[in-house]
């Protein structure tokens, strides 16, 4: 029983990575209609940036703040420069652009920081904590807490601020938003910036566990895409819940299903998604598309 509890908790821990990336993907998708394959590598760049600052003697938390600001700017800039020219294009064209960004950005990261994996020390120390009978490292717990706070802040931003409301309006009906003097282009850039920031939180705070390397976010990105599918691309809450569910499912599967192991643990989340989508093609939290007429 304790063992199961332990597995669930550590699954939730990794689930937070997927959840925040999935939220980022969702934000971009709702705004620009692009499935952003580069979301993971953008987070990787943030992690490298943090590693550079910290290894040059900067305090971890100060570095985090700076990196988040830089990531926001970078995300908004990417939208302005690379996405703007294809705004409103077919999903396929959008997808190819983000794939090109993935390929290019990954190479740029490797050119700047090299291929060798780097280590970023945990800001939470090496201790461990007991939570209702399960043992978690301080890093696991702290990282999860930081991501949780980020997700709540993001939720509050969209729910309670007028800027958040404007962004939702621009995402949902750009034509009407313009008539209400909303600069939709700026909102989209903000959306990308925000998405990059949310992704950067995950990238930096989980860097001590994942290790800093050009490919550090690859599998997380795919699980985040899966999570967004599971939750329904239209739903921010759904994406987060989807990420957590997949984290737990993957962890339990690799532990309890004989022969699965870590290389094939992806089978289970995809099986889950498959079943969910067969029953609810719009995802767990998505709305059937007919309502959107």
């Amino acid at each position: 029983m304790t063992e199961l509890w332990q597995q669930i908790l550590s699954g939730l821990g990794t689930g937070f990575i997927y959840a925040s990336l999935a939220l980022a993907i969702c934000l971009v998708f709702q705004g620009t209609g692009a499935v952003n394959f580069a979301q993971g590598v953008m987070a990787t760049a943030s992690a490298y940036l943090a590693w550079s600052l910290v290894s040059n003697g900067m305090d971890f938390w100060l570095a985090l703040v700076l990196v988040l600001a830089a990531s926001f700017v970078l995300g908004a800039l990417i939208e302005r420069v690379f996405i703007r020219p294809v705004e409103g294009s077919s999903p396929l064209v959008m997808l190819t652009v983000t794939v090109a960004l993935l390929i290019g950005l990954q190479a740029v990261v490797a050119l700047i920081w090299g291929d060798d994996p780097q280590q970023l020390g945990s800001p939470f120390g090496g201790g461990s904590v007991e939570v209702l009978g399960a043992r978690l490292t301080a890093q696991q717990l702290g990282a999860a807490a930081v991501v949780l706070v980020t997700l709540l802040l993001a939720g509050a931003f969209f729910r309670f601020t007028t800027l958040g409301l404007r962004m939702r309006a621009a995402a949902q009906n750009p034509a009407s938003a313009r008539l209400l003097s909303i600069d939709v282009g700026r909102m989209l850039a903000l959306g990308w910036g925000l998405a990059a920031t949310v992704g950067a939180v995950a990238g930096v705070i989980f860097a001590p566990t994942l290790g800093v390397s050009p490919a550090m976010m690859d599998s997380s990105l795919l699980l985040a895409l899966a999570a967004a599918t599971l939750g329904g691309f239209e739903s921010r809450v759904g994406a987060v819940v989807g990420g957590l569910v997949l984290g737990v499912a993957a962890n339990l599967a690799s532990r309890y299903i004989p022969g699965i192991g870590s290389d094939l643990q992806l089978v289970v989340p995809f099986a889950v998604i498959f079943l969910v989508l067969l029953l609810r093609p719009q995802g767990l939290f998505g709305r059937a598309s007919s309502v959107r007429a």
Partner: protein
Amino acid sequence: MTLLQLTGVRAAYDGVQALHGMDLAVTEGEMVALLGANGAGKTTTLRAVSGTVSVEGAVLLDGQDVTGWAAHRVARLGVGHVPEGRGTFVDLTVEENLTLGALARAKRLRGQVKEDLAAVHELFPILREFSRRQAGALSGGQQQMLAIARAILGRPRLLLVDEPSLGLAPMVTTEILRSLRVLQAEWQLAVLLAEQNARRALAVVDRAYVLESGRVVASGSAAELRENTAVQDAYLGAEQTGRPA
């Protein structure tokens, strides 16, 4: 004084010409109708003003040339547009829709949002009752009210309203047009109303332009046009039995 002036405005969608040199003017505080059948260019004229279709010619707002401006910049000058199909944010609540409307107003008018909201609620009580509901869950007539209320809360100087009667029962249309007139008089806003149903529109507006194939073919005060049977027969007869867009 003249608030809106269109001179020789031409516009096309995908190479199909919709406006062939429109000339019209709206003075401050008056309510003007654009009449004409489907495809006469009513919607395109409104879109030419709000910057949601690209045009040639000149669109002057309060003396300022806004031809070719992005829609959100035109809106900031005080142009509200209730578009064809209403354009409500269906996934947002009624309250959020109205807030977005109020956010569009000029900074100096931010202080009186509360009073204005109260006035709008008084005019359309249903919007207060359903304020927590998703806009998509409202009926067509309620959504139309929401769309007008949202645009009005931006305190525009010029309000463009596109076919508010489309798909609505006659009773509801009459109610909506009457409310529009009340607000227009109270807040001294200029209204340009595109409407297929000439009789109903002429009952509330000051003046009207009659459009055909992207041009103005007749204009005059509401009273004149009501009397003028020649114009009625030539251009406005068909839509009484006409199909909705």
